């Protein structure tokens, strides 16, 4: 009896020891990738199964919804947390992450593995990988190209009665707008119109207050109207550029578009609210990042031939720009598994993996993929993606970007949604805020 007890105890102990040892081994061969919780993240989970099979490394994921993504992940980086080995962080984080040593510099790794930044779309390299900008210092591999553009109800545009009515009212065909003025005409035309027994509205645009929404939306218009972040010849000189007459007109236009043509209650809308408004058949025009297009194309209600896509139209001077989205993938300095993390990046950078990434709904930034002759026709939105990526501009990526962004969110929302003050007041106030922030940073 005693001996049997001893034997079973010994067996249990051995089992426990084995399981502990096994756990230790498993955790050593695991990588945690942190990103936003959205459709592309699901595609990446599928794609990464190939890496798991080839490397034997188990991938774990920490995906956070967009409104909390920056809060959560910047907290993680700032506290030196070890949760994330790989971070697909927003493009604007790159300055702070590089200067504060939160990301591993990848130049030596790229050189060793023969990964060339010239193989990627130039705008994504500048936007997602470089700090300081336009210098060959790389902190990320461009992972997901993204840009703001538009989808529209092609089936509504094609209706003969609407075509006729629009032409009689505006003297031109109801077609994809070439300018923002035309876009507003179309939005006004559809606002509160009865279609198939349902009241529909003009446009779903970004108006969100909490994180970055209204900035990402309004900047599309402001860029195309002539807004500049600073004097191109004298960095951080803002007066007359941020609050130029053209920028004021741009902000006034965005407010006019919000006032005239958005669905009721559209006062705090970002990516998910806009996509909901579009997919539920509420709006004719839909501003959103390109990542939403594969989902729209596959949607039972608005997908296929019912939707079309177009890049930002031009401003009054005929120039068009689009807000850059997307992210690069970086190795977190606090990670104890940097070699495995670098192995993941090496695997991810391979052209065949990038090709597969595009096929699964991820926007590859590799030129070999997007410059392939078949790329533009591979999906209905592929050409719009290429056209949009060719006209991108991005928000500040300075280490103080969070303060710069919050000031912008407040100024824009106060004016556009709350209707307080004028566009001139909002942009003058923004110059004051940004100047103060840069002054604190010792830029003057």
């Amino acid at each position: 009896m005693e001996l049997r007890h001893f034997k079973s105890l010994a067996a249990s102990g051995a089992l426990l020891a084995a399981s502990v040892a096994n756990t230790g081994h498993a955790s050593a061969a695991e990588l945690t990738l942190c990103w936003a919780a959205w459709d592309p993240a699901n595609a990446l989970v599928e794609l990464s199964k190939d890496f798991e099979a080839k490397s034997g490394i188990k991938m774990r994921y920490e995906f956070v919804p967009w409104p909390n993504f920056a809060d959560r992940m910047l907290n993680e980086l700032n506290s030196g947390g070890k949760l994330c080995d790989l971070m697909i962080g927003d493009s604007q984080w790159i300055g702070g992450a590089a200067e504060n040593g939160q990301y591993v510099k990848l130049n030596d790794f790229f050189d060793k593995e023969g990964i060339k930044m010239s193989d990627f779309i130039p705008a994504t390299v500048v936007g997602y990988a470089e700090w300081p900008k336009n210098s060959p210092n790389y902190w990320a591999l461009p992972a997901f190209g993204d840009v703001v553009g538009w989808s529209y109800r092609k089936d509504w545009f094609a209706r003969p009665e609407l075509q006729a009515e629009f032409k009689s009212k505006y003297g031109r065909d109801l077609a994809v707008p070439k300018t923002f003025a035309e876009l507003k005409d179309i939005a006004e035309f559809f606002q509160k119109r009865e279609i198939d027994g349902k009241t529909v509205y003009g446009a779903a645009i970004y108006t969100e207050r909490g994180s970055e929404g209204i900035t990402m939306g309004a900047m599309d218009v402001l860029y195309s109207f002539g807004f500049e972040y600073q004097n191109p010849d004298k960095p951080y000189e803002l007066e007359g550029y941020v609050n130029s007459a053209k920028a004021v007109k741009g902000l006034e236009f965005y407010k006019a578009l919000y006032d005239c043509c958005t669905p009721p209650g559209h006062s705090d809308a970002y990516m998910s609210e806009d996509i909901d408004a579009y997919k539920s058949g509420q709006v004719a025009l839909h501003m959103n990042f390109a990542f939403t297009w594969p989902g729209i194309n596959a949607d039972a209600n608005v997908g296929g031939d019912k939707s079309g896509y177009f890049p930002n139209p031009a401003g009054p001077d005929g120039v068009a720009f689009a807000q850059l989205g997307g992210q690069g993938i970086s190795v977190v300095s606090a990670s104890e598994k940097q070699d495995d993390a670098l192995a993941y990046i090496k695997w991810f950078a391979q052209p065949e993996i990038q090709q597969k990434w595009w096929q699964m709904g991820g926007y590859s930034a590799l030129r070999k993929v997007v410059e392939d002759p078949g790329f533009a026709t591979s999906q209905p939105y592929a050409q719009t993606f290429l056209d949009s990526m060719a006209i991108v501009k991005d928000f500040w990526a300075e280490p103080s970007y969070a303060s710069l962004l919050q000031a912008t969110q407040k100024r824009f929302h106060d004016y556009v949604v709350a209707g307080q003050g004028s566009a001139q007041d909002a942009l003058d106030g923004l110059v004051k805020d940004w100047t103060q922030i840069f002054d604190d940073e010792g830029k003057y």
Partner: protein
Amino acid sequence: MLKSTVDRVAGATPHALAKRVRGLSDRSLAWLFVAPSIVLLLAVNIFPLIWTVRLSFTNFRVNRPNAEVQFIGLKNYLSILSDKDIWLTMQATAHFLIWTIVLQVLIGFSLAYLINKKFRGNDLWTTIIVLPMMLSPAVVGNFWTFLYQPQIGLFNYAVGFLTGADPSSFSMIGDVSLAPWAIIIVDTWMWTPFVMLICLAGLRSIPSSIYEAAECDRASKWRQFWTITIPLVLPFLMLAVLFRGIENFKMFDLVVQLTGGGPGSITELTSINLKREAFEKWRTGYASAYAVILFVTVFGLASIYVKALNKVKQR
């Protein structure tokens, strides 16, 4: 049996330890028992408070671990107190605080007065009324955003039904003039039951003999209400006001879910503004000074109020 167990435990205590413990006074033993709590309190409350005060005199930013931390004296405090936007958030907080307390006290007391009467289904109604305060503020904020939705929201539909207005013609959380009231309505809906329960406790603590004596003196119901009910319930009401005041001064979750501080900054209460400074702009020193100012404000006002409450109780 018990004695033998005690003896056995005592006997099993190592001699050296038993000798040390035997020499302790009651006071020492009391300290020994409360010491873990005090250490915990110091670690999680007092130390962070002192550290926050220290940080408030610096330019420290938690997202700049490599930057030199400089002592900047009262600069953060002066900057906060002279910031027009911060005074606007103070105003928004005061508006929210005053109206929620007024409404919750009026409705809460009225409900308690009604519930205190004996009627059929009394217990069921009490349970139904207290349901909102059992929910999570984040959940309440989330589902009220749906109720306030101009196209599908039940609230807009009800207002439209009662007034004849088009439900989609107004947005409770998107309109500058309505949004401050939208958050007041939701907080009142959620927390009036709490005030009601406290008032109910007050009403039920009044001995019936006082009312019987008043009846004998032929005092009218109105007179009984003002000279018996209100004075005796007042300490309870004041306690409810204190609790709700402190809670609503630091209101965050409900309003963030409902409006996110918008439209513009019209419902940006001080706690939301503080969170933005601390964890979005990462101005740690500045946010520490902001937190100290809010702490001193709440602590000061609450202390004055508690003194007044004690005076009322002594009357």
